[in-house]
């Protein structure tokens, strides 16, 4: 693993950076409750569509050692016009007090990583239509959007490896049956199949249920093409002499497949794995965008974006609402770079 990282660093600088960027994203998603200055569903009605507040260090030509924010002055509440009130200064405190909430399911605390205490407001990415802090919501939304890729990919890869492995190893009628099944699944256009599957379930499910539903739907679609590729690789790998040797030792078919054949496909699968994570993130976004995914008030990057669709006032007047889109973009690109890098490094010909 260490060697692998070293090789990745030398072979492909940008994918190495992507790896750290992704790890960083996963870390902040994991710590979202603690890092975000407000709960994701805390509404500040009077501050709807407030632009981002910038942390500052200069005031009246002097440098303040502690970063601070100005107070927000409501110029016109009807049209959501705000201005910075330079007479009020709120220093940004570490471990500031706020609304009490439960961390990790058991730790009750009213401390946040940073904040301005009770008086001032700090909206790093601005607020949405209900005055909720976009920064906090992006962090919480990252949990959904980032985990859906990993979980979905794992399920579909286990399915794909098993079906592909069995199909290629046994051949004959098993192969014909499984491959026709795969072709039937692949025949449907990805997006419509996703919509149809989602439509088959009741619309009024809880967020957790919807979350699992989406994972299952996405992975049920995703395994088919992988199974086909794995089957092709197994067809050639099963002729390797060490497979014959393993069989001559009396190992069971399952063991021969999982231990002696499938590891031979890993240089491909690891790459395909990282390259297909973006598909799941985008799939979730697409479902949420259409209102079929994660439901408000719980945030996901997709459903945060969905508010902006077709709303000209937001597009022109509150572009910070599209920040979740930027995160989707960065994550997808990082996964693609990482996959590219792994493909280069995992291929023994490039060592």
């Amino acid at each position: 693993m260490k060697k692998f990282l070293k090789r990745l660093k030398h072979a492909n600088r940008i994918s190495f950076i992507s790896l750290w960027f992704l790890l960083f994203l996963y870390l902040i998603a994991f710590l979202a409750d603690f890092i975000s200055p407000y709960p994701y569903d805390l509404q500040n009605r009077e501050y709807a569509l407030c632009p981002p507040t910038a942390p500052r260090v200069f005031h009246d030509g002097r440098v303040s050692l502690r970063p601070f924010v100005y107070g927000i002055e409501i110029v016109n509440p009807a049209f959501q016009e705000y201005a910075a009130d330079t007479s009020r200064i709120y220093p940004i405190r570490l471990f500031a007090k706020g609304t009490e909430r439960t961390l990790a399911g058991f730790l009750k605390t009213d401390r946040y990583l940073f904040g301005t205490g009770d008086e001032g407001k700090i909206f790093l990415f601005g607020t949405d239509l209900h005055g909720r802090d976009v920064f906090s919501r992006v962090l919480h939304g990252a949990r959904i959007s980032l985990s859906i890729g990993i979980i979905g990919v794992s399920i579909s890869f286990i399915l794909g490896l098993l079906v592909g492995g069995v199909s290629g190893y046994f051949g004959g009628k098993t192969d014909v049956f499984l491959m026709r099944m795969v072709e039937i699944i692949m025949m449907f256009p990805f997006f419509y199949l996703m919509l149809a599957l989602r439509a088959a379930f009741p619309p009024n499910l809880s967020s957790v249920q919807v979350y699992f539903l989406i994972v299952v739907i996405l992975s049920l679609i995703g395994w088919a093409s992988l199974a086909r590729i794995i089957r092709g690789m197994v067809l050639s790998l099963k002729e390797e002499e060490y497979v014959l040797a393993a069989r001559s030792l009396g190992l069971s078919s399952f063991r021969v497949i999982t231990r002696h054949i499938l590891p031979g496909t890993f240089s491909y699968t690891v790459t395909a794995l990282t390259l297909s994570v973006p598909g799941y993130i985008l799939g979730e976004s697409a479902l949420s965008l259409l209102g079929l995914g994660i439901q408000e008030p719980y945030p996901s990057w997709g459903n945060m974006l969905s508010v902006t669709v077709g709303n000209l006032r937001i597009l022109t007047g509150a572009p910070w609402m599209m920040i979740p889109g930027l995160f989707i973009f960065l994550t997808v690109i990082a996964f693609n770079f990482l996959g590219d890098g792994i493909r280069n490094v995992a291929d023994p010909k490039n060592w």
Partner: protein
Amino acid sequence: MEKMLEIKKLEVSFRPAVGESVKILRGVNLSVGKNESLALAGESGSGKTVTARAVMKLLPNNMNFEKGEILIRDRNVMNLKEQEFRKIRGKDVSMIFQEPSSYLNPVFTAGSQVLEAVKGDGPGRKERTIKLLNEVGLKENVFYQYPHQLSGGMQQRVMIAMALINNPGLLIADEPTTALDVTTAYGIVELLKEMMEKHGLSMLFITHDISLAVNFANMIAVMYAGRIVELAGAGEILNSPLHPYTEMLVSCLPEKYKSGDKIKTIEGKVPDFRDLPKGCSFHPRCPYKKEICLREEPGEMKRGEGIVRCFKYGDFVEA
């Protein structure tokens, strides 16, 4: 005496992608007694490896059993299901192969592969493995090494350890020394002899090298075009070969040359299975051929402990 392996009238056919199926083994009879070694010798393409893989029931998909019986420890295994036969593989009969480097999985350590072969759990599996590795002449650190870090001879020793870990009664060695250089091969042969003695092993030793066969085995079966043409003790094969083919093979041995002699070869080549000559399949290359050889196939005739298929020794025709 208990027979470890007995093959009776085994016929195996090959089904090509196009065209009719072709018989590869045409009535092979063999038997290996307890703690005996039988060498199966013959040119490339005579059906030696197919015989071995038939015993393991690991024939390639395009080959089929046609007729005959295979008995392992006097138990007919021809009709056993794959699941049941799997219990026999590795436990009663195991196999080592020609090219050790490609028969070891490159992604696992040697030790874990030997360990994997152990049937059943039970404590001390690792200790047993390391002990056996020592026994086949390897140091303990080999346990943690990958196949590509080992030499060919060491790889073959790992294969032998893998094959012997469950104390099988019968070991099939399919040209275990072909891919090795002469000194390493000698070491492997000596090791196999030692293992036979220590573990009371029976051995079916497949080789194309008749001098190696004579050196190694008590009995030698000479195979030609999917048939055993002569079966005899090692001494008889070397000193008084019966079948013309054996005679020619033995006369080609370098030990028989005087200095200045030309290197002898057998004219012609192994016949194509799709187009076997009518009558005795060896007749196109045979210096003793008679009129009957062109028409009929010779049957198995008993000569002492062994058998021979040649009209030189009688007119017994294959049914």
